[in-house]
């Protein structure tokens, strides 16, 4: 019996995952029998038309949602039956989200936005600020740390959002159409950032319908009507 190498152990494993919503007493099956493995250092792109269930899949992978059937194994632990509080802790410590609409908190500085996950992690103020500043500096945002989201360009806002996702050093980074609200040039810059992050050893899962972006991926998952095709 050979012991699998640690780096090749899946961080995240979806086993026969299904998700059904009940809308007006009708069962609507969004996901059916999804099997998926995410290993450390993966760069996975999930593609599919709108309504195909790719966002729901992302939410389940990011522990924002739980499946109605099947298992989600996060670091050898079944998280599909956890309580909301336990899921929140996993999201806080193991997952970094990047959204299409950035989702920065308005009237709150870039620095404070990046510090947010660390507050919920219970990191003391001084250490928190140092960590957040370091990540922001990495993306060339040092002169911008005390600016409010509405004083930043779209590209800058997304870089702040990426900083926020990275600051807790998560196991996986989930990005849901991160370039959807950006012009193509800025979009390329953001994709470059994800590529660099992946090269540095980060695990990235990215949802998009842009084929050019998909070209950068190590692995492409196409999803249609709730099934991997």
């Amino acid at each position, binding site marked *: 019996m050979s012991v699998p190498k640690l780096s090749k152990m899946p961080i995240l494993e979806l086993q026969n995952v299904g998700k059904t919503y009940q809308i007006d007493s009708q069962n609507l099956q969004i996901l059916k029998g999804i099997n998926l493995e995410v290993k450390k250092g993966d760069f996975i792109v999930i593609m599919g038309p709108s309504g195909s269930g790719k966002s729901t899949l992302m*939410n389940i992978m*990011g522990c*924002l*949602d739980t499946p109605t059937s099947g298992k989600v194994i996060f670091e050898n632990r079944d998280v599909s039956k956890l309580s*909301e*509080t336990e899921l*929140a*802790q996993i*999201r*806080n*410590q193991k997952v970094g*989200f990047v*959204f299409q609409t950035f*989702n920065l*908190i*308005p*009237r*709150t500085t870039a620095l404070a936005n990046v510090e*947010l*996950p660390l*507050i*919920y*992690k*219970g*990191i*003391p*103020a001084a250490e928190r600020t140092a960590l957040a500043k370091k990540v922001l500096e990495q993306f060339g945002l040092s002169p911008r740390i005390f600016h409010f989201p509405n004083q930043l360009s779209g590209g800058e806002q997304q870089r702040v959002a990426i900083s*926020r996702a990275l600051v*807790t050093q998560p196991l996986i980074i989930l990005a849901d159409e991160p370039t959807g609200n950006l012009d193509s040039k800025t979009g390329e810059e953001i994709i470059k950032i994800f590529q660099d992050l992946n090269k540095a050893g980060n695990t990235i899962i990215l949802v998009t319908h842009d084929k050019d972006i998909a070209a950068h991926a190590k692995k492409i998952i196409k999803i249609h009507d709730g099934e991997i095709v």
Partner: protein
Amino acid sequence: MEKLFETFKLAIITLRANKLRSLLTMLGIIIGVSSVILLISIGSGLKGYITGQLQGLGSNSLYVVPGNLELKPGGGGSGGTPGAGTASLKFTLAQYHELIQKGITFQAVMGYSENNGTVSYAGKSNTLQVAGVGYQYPEVRNQYPIQGTFFNATQQEAGKKVIVLGKTVADNLFGNEDPTGKKITLSDNKFTVLGVLEKKGAFGSVDMDNQVFIPFTTAMTTFDVDRVQSFWIQAKDNIPLDQVKAEIKKILLRTLKQDDFSVLDTGSIISVISQVLGVLTIALAGIAAISLIVGGIGIMNIMLVSVTERTKEIGLRKAVGATPKIIMIQFLIESTVISVAGGIIGIILGAGGSLAMKSFLPTSVSFWSILLAFSVSVIIGVVFGVLPAGRAARLNPIQALRYE
């Protein structure tokens, strides 16, 4: 702990970002708390003042008034002395003399009456209270003449037309002139002014120095009544009031029936007045407290709006790891900060208002009313914050993130 502190800081930042809204939301609490503080301060101030005044009459004073006067709110009589009505006057001069002769526990026995009359001198006139008192009045009341003398026992016995003026009366009628020995007119009778009593000050809005004093015997003839309105008896020092009361009753029961008279002491009068004022204060404060509930509903309303407005923010916070509990605490702290800040402003305004009223009303802000107002505002913040905070905590993160 770290999280709690950050959450508290966050609440302050959020409230400061919406200054006008926060202030308007506080308004209900501010009005409620300040009026509760103010009303309680007026109530307790008045109570303290009246009690003090009555104690000034002497804690060893007893009043014998006509009628069976069960002491209850609304009992009393006119002015400071109960039972001064004329309908059922029972006491005679003979009883006065019996009290003096047989009583061994009495320091002083005075007849006492209150009538309204008009005094005039050199074209100036003044309508005021005419007190018919005994010659011992200065010692009993601890108020002595500053000019001239008080009348003596002989003058009282003879029913002489002599009069002693309160300070205000003397100032009004005579100005800088020395009134001693002058003749003034009271109810068509000429009275000789014997002296002027020292200032005693105002009793609430009633000027205690705007009255004149004549022998109660003289008052009987002047106001044409053949009975004595009431007796004012001062007990000897160190004799229990109950014993004095018993002796008064024993003497009077020879000629009167049980139901014909009542013996009151300052203590029982004070307890009745405190009771009445206490009930009144609580009733008024209770009415004012209704606005606290209205204020609480205002807070709940604005917090619900705030939760809806910040749905997306709540979703994001949950996505980056906020537990339902911490979201709940965040909104509870916000509502509590609003209501406590309102409470503190209300306490300051109420106490300030009470200080401002001090010049014409004896108010006193009690520590317990501040404590009460503060804890009530904390409770309101928490109670009316629970519904909005619970709603925020239960928000589904995915739907919240999608909310536009």
